[in-house]
Structures are given as structure tokens and as C-alpha cells.
């Protein structure tokens, strides 16, 4: 999608990335400078469109600007305001780009060429602040189609056929979840979009919300129709101010056009969507905690069953899907469930968006078919570790996931393969770890995170993670005893099997996976006198 131009495009266009990452690199000033440069250029630049867009993927080269001309698209990175004039000249065809040569980014390189955009097909293309731009790119066409031509059961059938599984981490079949909510006894029900993307290093959902918010609203509205809900919430973390701003704007625009509200597209379907902003609690990504938070309470999880699909918000059946899951829905409806199901692997269908970061040359957003190997993502697309140093491991699944060692980089990315290795898909953060990182220290980093984010309700997570962090500190400092290793493993197992919610149950994963693949480093963390002879690793 990045290197294609929509057929309707007649005029040359500069797309300036106006998402969080490029903004922090200075894209705000660049965008203003582009507009100034265009007015200064006068008549020659008149046909040139300049649009703010969402993430253009290669965040490490930000700020990024894409240039669309009839003969093709090109991308420039590492830009700053003084280059605005050259960009406008290039856009109006009055310059040979010489000063931009150093900033040109090859769109044929694997980082772009191997991407398969479904969820992100509009991200970087549409102007996220303009509903007209979104509609021109097809937004709400599928909602109209569903409301006017499909029954709720037909819609769910397409989702079932697509094989889509929850992109928030656990991978629960989306179609089954929709059916469970839809088939509850008659009465009110709710749909919720979980946009509390809390894993450090994960910014997939943020990019969707910042780059293509109408796609998310459309997906949520289709979900509401499919399960019979007339009320929806988007629970966004407060740390995403730009995403919140754009979602609010998108909601206002959709209401003004009567795309949300009563009798949508002339049907009997009504839907009201509200945004609820979190207040800084990772645990609120857990669905029962999230519902507590939506209802104005402490984000403490409760035991399941009952599942939210049976008893959720205000006791009513509630469908909870994350951003990426819902953002996949419009494309599935447009192309058909079978089309989506043909992408990816048998058990994990479709595409997955990853936020690639850490010790890697190309930091940014990649969307690839499920089943793509970690090596392809990290080395071929990501370009490996800077300065040619070796990859030690790849961390997936955030503080609930694990580290996959370099030797297993040929593992395909799918739910089952990652779980078999002691990690998990998680929401899609993929952090490359260089040789220089000590694994007990990395494990402690995640354990600290879990200590800080534990809600404190259940004992194993509240008190167990504190003890785990202290144990890990001994290994980091190199003064652990051999018995500490045994205690570490037993306590990990205890916290894993007895914690109340998924956060607690998964808190030991970063320790367990590094123990599994880098045990020697823990042994090195023991005092020599107690460690005994070093066995063959």
C-alpha cells in the first residue's frame, strides 16, 4: 500500500507523517513549513496537496514524508523544516530532488516490500482528521453494506470464516466470542474496544487510532450490529493524547453525518459510542479490570467465569475486542471471510501488526502474514542489530511474554508456536535484544514493571512479584545462592498457577523463558562458592 497510489489520485500529494513518533521527531514543525513553502512557491505548487497522515512505518527515520506523483510514490526520512522547500519543489515537479537525495528511503527494501497491509491499509494514506478522506478511502462502506444487506448472523458468519483471533494477546476466536454475546438471552448488551495498549514497546493500536480512527469506529459499529448492542465504549489509555484527540474528532464527525446515532444508514440500528480514558494502570488491559474502570472503579480483576460475554458491563453481556481485531473487520467484510482466512497459517489466520523496536536498525511498524518467521521480521525487514552485532533474543508479549533466543529465530510467528517456546504473541510488541544485554537484568526489568502494575488484590501477584524482584536482584548483583535459583523457580510456578488474573499468571514468564534459554547467566549470578562446578550449557 505504501508504494501504490489510489487510482483516484490526480494531483501530486505530500503525505506528512503526523503520528506520535514522527511528532516527537519534529513533524509538527515540518508540516507547517511545508504549507508555508507551498504558499511561497505560488502558482507552480498550486496543484500540490499536503496532508497529515498516520504512521508511515519506519519510525526510526522520522519525520517521514511520502510523495505521490503520477509516476509513483517515494518516501523521505530524517527530514527537518529547512527541507520543506525542496519537498514542495519535488512535489510540483520543479526540482530534480538533489537536496533530497540523502533523505530518500528505498520503498523496495524488504522492510516495506514484505509488508502485507490489511489493518494498516489506510494508515499513512488517509488524513486521520478528515472523515471525507476516510470515506474516499472506503470507510463506512462495509457498515452500510451490513446494515442494508446482511443479517447480524451473516456478519458473524463472515467473521467465523475469516478465522480471526483476538489480537490483544490471548488469541480467542473472534467469531466464537461474537456468537457467545449474540446468543445470550434478550436484553441490553455492550461492545467495548480495548485500546489500553499497555505493553512497553507496543504501539500498533496507537498507530491505528492516530492514523485511521474511522476504520476502528466502523469495525466497532459492525461488531455492535453483529451482537445486537446499541451502546459501545472505547477504553483508551490516557498516555495516548493524540489518539484520544483523533478518536474524539472522528466520533463527532461520524455523529454529524449520522453514521453513528439513531437509524444509521436508514436502518433500525442505533449506536452510541463513548470514549473512556484510563488513568495509568496496565492491569486495566485485563478485561474484567477494564470493565471496572469503565464503571468508574479501581481496576481490580475478578474471577472468570462469569465471562464478560455472559456478564459484563452493568451485568449485561459485553463484547470486548482490542483495536487491531476490530480494525481488521471492515476489510474482512469487504473481501470476505475466506479471503482473510487464506492469509497466514491454518491455526493463525490473517495478518499481524508488530511494533519492532529495541536493538534493531529499522524501528517501526510492520504488518505481515501470520506464520512469517521471526528471522524475516527481525533480520530481513528489521535489518538486524545496528553495527552488525548479533541478535541475542527477541522479546514478544511484553511483561507477560518471553524471550526467544537467536537459535530459534526461524520460528514462525503464530499463537501456538510462540506459546510452545514459553513466550506469547501478546499484543504485538517485538523487542530485539542485543548480545550485550544480561538476561537476569532484563527479567528484573519486567518484574519491576509487574510489581508497579500489580493491582494488589490477590496475594501471589501482590507479594510474590515483590519477592521475585528481590530474588532477581541477587542474580543481577552476582550474590545469589544456588538455593535462590530453586526458590526463584518455585515462586515463579506459584505465582503462575495461583494468581487471579492473566497479569499475575503471566508475570513470571519473562523469568521462566530466560531461565529456559539462558540458564547459564543465572548460574553466573550465583556466588562461585555455592554455584558448584559449571555444567555444560
Amino acid at each position, binding site marked *: 500500500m505504501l508504494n501504490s497510489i489510489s487510482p483516484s489520485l490526480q494531483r501530486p500529494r505530500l503525505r506528512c507523517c503526523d503520528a506520535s513518533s514522527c511528532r*516527537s521527531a519534529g513533524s509538527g514543525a515540518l508540516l507547517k513549513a511545508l504549507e508555508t513553502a507551498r504558499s511561497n512557491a505560488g502558482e507552480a505548487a498550486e496543484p500540490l496537496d499536503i496532508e497529515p497522515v498516520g504512521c508511515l512505518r519506519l519510525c*526510526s527515520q522520522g519525520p517521514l514524508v511520502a510523495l505521490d506523483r503520477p509516476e509513483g510514490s517515494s518516501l523521505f526520512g530524517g527530514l527537518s523544516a529547512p527541507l520543506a522547500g525542496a519537498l514542495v519543489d519535488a512535489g510540483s515537479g520543479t526540482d530534480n530532488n538533489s537536496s533530497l537525495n540523502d533523505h530518500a528511503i528505498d520503498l523496495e527494501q524488504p522492510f516495506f516490500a514484505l509488508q502485507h497491509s490489511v489493518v494498516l491499509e489506510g494508515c499513512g494514506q488517509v488524513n486521520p482528521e478528515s472523515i471525507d478522506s476516510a470515506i474516499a478511502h472506503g470507510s463506512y462502506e462495509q457498515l452500510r453494506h451490513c446494515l442494508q444487506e446482511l443479517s447480524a448472523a451473516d456478519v458473524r458468519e463472515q467473521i467465523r470464516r475469516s478465522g480471526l483471533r483476538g489480537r490483544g494477546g490471548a488469541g480467542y476466536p473472534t467469531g466464537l466470542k461474537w456468537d457467545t454475546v449474540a446468543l445470550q438471552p434478550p436484553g441490553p448488551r455492550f461492545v467495548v474496544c480495548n485500546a489500553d495498549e499497555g505493553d512497553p514497546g507496543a*504501539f500498533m493500536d*496507537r498507530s491505528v487510532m492516530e492514523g485511521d480512527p474511522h476504520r476502528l469506529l466502523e469495525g466497532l459499529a459492525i461488531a455492535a450490529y453483529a451482537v445486537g448492542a446499541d451502546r459501545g465504549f472505547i477504553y483508551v489509555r490516557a498516555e495516548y493524547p493524540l489518539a484520544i484527540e483523533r478518536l474524539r474528532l472522528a466520533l463527532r464527525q461520524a455523529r454529524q453525518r449520522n453514521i453513528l446515532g439513531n437509524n444509521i444508514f436508514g436502518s433500525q440500528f442505533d449506536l452510541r459510542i463513548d470514549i473512556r480514558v484510563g488513568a495509568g494502570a496496565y492491569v486495566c488491559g485485563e478485561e474484567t479490570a477494564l470493565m471496572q474502570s469503565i464503571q468508574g472503579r479501581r481496576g481490580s480483576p475478578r474471577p472468570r467465569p462469569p465471562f464478560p460475554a455472559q456478564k459484563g458491563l452493568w451485568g449485561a453481556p459485553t463484547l470486548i475486542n482490542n483495536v487491531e481485531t476490530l480494525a481488521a473487520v471492515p476489510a474482512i467484510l469487504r473481501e470476505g471471510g475466506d479471503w482473510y482466512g487464506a492469509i497466514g497459517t491454518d491455526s493463525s489466520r490473517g495478518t499481524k501488526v508488530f511494533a519492532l523496536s*529495541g536493538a534493531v536498525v529499522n524501528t517501526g511498524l510492520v504488518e505481515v502474514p501470520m506464520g512469517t518467521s521471526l528471522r524475516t521480521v527481525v533480520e530481513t525487514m528489521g535489518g538486524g542489530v545496528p553495527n552488525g552485532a548479533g541478535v541475542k533474543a527477541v522479546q514478544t508479549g511484553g511483561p507477560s511474554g518471553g524471550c526467544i533466543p537467536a537459535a530459534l529465530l526461524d520460528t514462525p510467528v503464530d499463537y501456538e508456536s510462540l506459546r510452545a517456546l514459553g513466550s506469547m504473541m501478546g499484543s504485538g510488541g517485538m523487542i530485539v535484544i542485543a548480545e550485550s544485554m544480561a538476561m537476569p537484568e532484563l527479567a528484573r526489568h519486567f518484574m519491576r514493571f509487574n510489581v508497579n502494575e500489580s493491582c494488589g488484590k490477590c496475594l501471589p501477584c501482590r507479594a510474590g512479584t515483590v519477592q521475585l524482584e528481590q530474588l532477581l536482584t541477587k542474580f543481577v548483583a552476582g550474590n545469589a545462592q544456588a538455593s535462590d535459583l530453586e526458590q526463584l523457580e518455585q515462586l515463579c510456578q506459584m505465582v503462575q498457577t495461583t494468581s487471579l488474573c492473566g497479569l499475575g499468571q503471566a508475570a513470571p514468564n519473562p523469568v521462566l523463558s530466560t531461565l529456559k534459554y539462558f540458564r547459564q547467566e543465572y548460574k553466573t549470578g550465583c556466588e562461585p562458592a555455592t554455584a558448584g562446578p559449571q555444567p555444560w550449557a
Partner: protein
Amino acid sequence: MKAAAAAPIASEATAEQKRINRLVAQNGSSPDALIEVLHQVQEIYGYLPEAALSQVAQQLRMPLSRVYGVASFYNLFHLEAPAAHSCELCMGTTCFVKGASELVPLLEQRLQQQLDGPSAADGWVLRQVSCQGACGQGPVLVVDGQLISQATGQGPGLLQGQLDAAGLPNRAPKPSLGAP
């Protein structure tokens, strides 16, 4: 109860209370709106003063302890007035694996205060924060709202210059002649 009893006497306090009452009403006066209301109260004061919490509880018809329980649960709610100036070091995983912790001694030395310790007399506080969402530019620092990116990749001299420009005080003892 202290907070509520003290408030209605002064007329300014009543104006403050009216402001909160309006805000609660705008949010539908339902206990469900508590978090949204607290966000808006914090926007006004910069934190959540006790009297405001008490007023919110009254208006939403909620127990005081429940309001306090919620206000103290979430990281972004502050029960005390915030420090005047902050230097925040991102300790998100990406920044961490890119060496954010190596910056701790440099910052502690410069400010002559401890990470996550009490704020200095001139109001500066040095703390670690979770992911700032600038993973492409990591490791990052935020000095009074100003983002400093790729803080380890540019050499300590350049970084110190950027910190100077961002207004971060340099309290490090001057090196004696001949010291590196």
C-alpha cells in the same frame, strides 16, 4: 469531616465547589463518571486536592473512601501538588534495552539528587517513567515537557548541551583542573 466542613465558609470556596458541581453535572452525575471527573478536576488544579475529592464524592453520591480508593489506584492521578520541574527518564522496555539505565548516574550527578527521590529545593524532580511512545527515538528523556531523543547515541558532551538548552540545572561539582 475536615475538608468538607471548611469549604463552604469562604465565598471563593463556594465558587470552586460550583465549578466542580458543574463539571459533575456535565458528566451525567453518575458514579460511573468518577474517573472522567477526576481527570477534569486534575486539569483545573494540577492535582486532586482533598476538598475537591470530597466535593466530587458528595456530588456523585459516593462514599469518600471509594473516591480515595480510585484516586490513589491510578498512576496518573496525583494526590499532592506536582513538582515545579521534572526530568523524566523513560524506562520503557525499548529505552531500557537501548541503555536508558546508563543515563541514571549522569543525571543523578548533574542534578545531585536521586532518581525517584524527593524533589530538590528549587522544585526539580528526577524520576523514571513508563513508555513515552517514542520507541523509534529511544532512549528518551523528557525535561519539562521537552523531549530529548537518542540520549545515549550522541556522546555525553552533546547530551549535556541539550540538557543545558532544555533548562536542566547543572549542579555537578566542577571538575578540578586535569581531571578527565
